[in-house]
């Protein structure tokens, strides 16, 4: 293998790592906000799926990718409202509410999708293209890896410091973390825990829905059943592995994206492995990653426990 080819492969692996990271990063940052507010939202998979579906419908119906992005965000927020109603208002067990949401999302999206395409060929759209930033994208290796990506990828990378700033440097963030650690303190001050959890879950789920939307707009041109294929669960794994901290979650998400990128490139370089093994790699990695994670110091103290007054 000549050197030029090797370099091209390495650049390609790294560039696609950044691309694969993008949807996971949006969704993981959304779930980070949600979980820091004390709601263990197990409905990430369903929220991402709904975001992807809304983006697909909007993109094919209106032809506008940016309207599709908005649709994904709204769909995510609506799913968040359902989760918040179930967990914060009705105090249904968080795990059950999340599982219920996933099953509902799986059924509803598939039904609407089949109704939408009934009797015609599935409409497709052309998704986001890479934007090469002038000058920066000409830098060897770093240029094509970092500065020749889709517009939303740059946004996703900015979301990480933004969420960090929101959580640790604003009054709202302090209150939000308090929801997960000690909601009673807010209640005693006369602030509504339920209303705040609603706001946090809807904000977080809007980001999670955007992640699903970008998965659709950046990687595909059509919808499929189980489109998200477990990525919502990988997001939950990334939160645990990242110890509920923005930097840690970023690291965990990068690891997954790198593995997935590596797996898809194994075939490009002609490795003789069944493609199912490559597809299974991220799930295998999740299990191994969680087996190694022992520290849980960052887990919010009241995560997943319905708040009851008194």
């Amino acid at each position: 293998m000549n050197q030029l080819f090797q370099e091209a492969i390495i650049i390609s692996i790294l560039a696609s790592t950044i691309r694969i990271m993008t949807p996971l990063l949006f969704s993981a940052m959304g779930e980070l906000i949600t979980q820091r507010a004390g709601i263990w939202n197990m409905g990430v998979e369903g929220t991402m799926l709904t975001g992807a579906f809304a983006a697909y419908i909007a993109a094919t119906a209106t032809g506008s990718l940016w309207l599709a992005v908005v649709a994904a965000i709204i769909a995510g927020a609506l799913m968040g409202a359902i989760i918040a109603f179930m967990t914060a208002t009705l105090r249904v067990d968080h795990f059950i509410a999340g599982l219920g949401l996933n099953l509902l999302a799986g059924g509803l999206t598939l039904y609407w999708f089949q109704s939408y395409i009934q009797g015609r060929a599935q409409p497709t759209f052309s998704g986001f293209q890479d934007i090469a930033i002038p000058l920066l994208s000409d830098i060897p290796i770093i240029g094509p890896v970092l500065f020749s990506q889709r517009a939303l990828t740059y946004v996703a990378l900015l979301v990480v410091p933004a969420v960090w700033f929101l959580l640790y440097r604003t009054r709202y963030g302090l209150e939000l973390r308090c929801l997960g650690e000690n909601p009673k303190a807010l209640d005693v001050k006369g602030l509504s825990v339920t209303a705040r959890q609603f706001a946090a879950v809807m904000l977080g789920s809007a980001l999670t829905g955007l992640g699903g939307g970008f998965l659709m707009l950046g990687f595909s041109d059509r919808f499929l059943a189980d489109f998200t294929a477990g990525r919502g669960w990988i997001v939950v794994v990334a939160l645990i592995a990242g110890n509920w901290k923005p930097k840690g979650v970023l690291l965990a998400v990068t690891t997954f994206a790198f593995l997935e990128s590596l797996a898809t490139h194994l075939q490009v370089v002609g490795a003789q492995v069944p493609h199912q093994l490559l597809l299974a790699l991220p799930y295998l990695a999740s299990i191994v990653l969680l087996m190694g994670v022992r520290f849980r110091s960052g887990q919010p103290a009241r995560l997943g426990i319905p708040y009851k007054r008194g």
Partner: protein
Amino acid sequence: MIRFEPRTERDGLWTAAAFAMAIAAGLAVSALLLASTGANVGQVFSALVQGAVGSPKAIATTLVKATPIILTGLATVIAFRAQLWSIGQEGQVFAGAMGGYLGAQLLAGLPAVAFFPGVLVFGMAAGVAFGWLAAVLKNRFGVNEIISTVMLNYLIVYLLSWMLQGGPWGESGGTISYQQSPMLPSDAFLPALFGSSRLHAGVLLPFIAAAICSLVLSRTPLGYEIRGLGYNPEALRHKGVNIGRTVTIILMASGALASLAGAVELFGVAHRLRADNLVGLGYAGIIVGMIGGLRPLGTVMAGLFFGGLASGAVYMRVLGDVPAALVPAIQGITLFFFLCAGVLARYRVVKVAVQ
């Protein structure tokens, strides 16, 4: 403002009313969903009922469709009652069919009395193995069972895909891969209950399994431990119960029930190993178990209801062009209203003045 106050005593009538409202609300929202896509709601519902209970053949189909869902529902009951949120049922169904298929190859030629119990045990062993794996991950490594079982589900599905496509079990011949195994020999089909009907002997299994689950839950030390894990694991620990061991047994038993569903589908309905008739059985079982109030009898009833929906949907598809995904959509909607009804049954809604 409204507030929820726990009811001090259980009101049977109110509970029943809450769940009746849940069914009504579920059907009403499903009707809205149908109307939203321009279908004739009345026609679709009458086709559903016709196809579910309209003829002896329809009832037979309902029973056949309910069989695997009740089994995965019982698998859910055993795990969820102990607050072990396993959602491995989906993958364990696949594992059960694979184990059964392997068994059919190894035990071929045995007389039916030994063959069928044998292959069902092979199928169940596969689910038991995956239940054990999830238990080890939880006990030894502290991996949340929801996440480990979801990941295992995907791993099992890809394993089956490889076995059928690149691996040893695929149907050979031709250039196109169908992702299915060759047909089983006809003496490996579960025998029909009446003459040549499609009602195979496997439809009896969920009822037997439900009776056993009910007995185990209410009358045995294991049942006590399962309920105890759900209510108060600390108290159980103080009583000297080995929690890790109990978790392992529960997840293995749950796996056995879910994989039995896969094996019964293979030998009773599909007669060859393929993925598309197994997809969703595990998730449907989770819904059925939860709607059934995590009780064996309730699960049987919810399973029959969903079996009727699935059977009715077959009839509906023949009649009109309503999408096949109507059934999972109605399942999901119904589940949500049942979760809300569960809250209504336990709490009293109180209006409070805003200060």
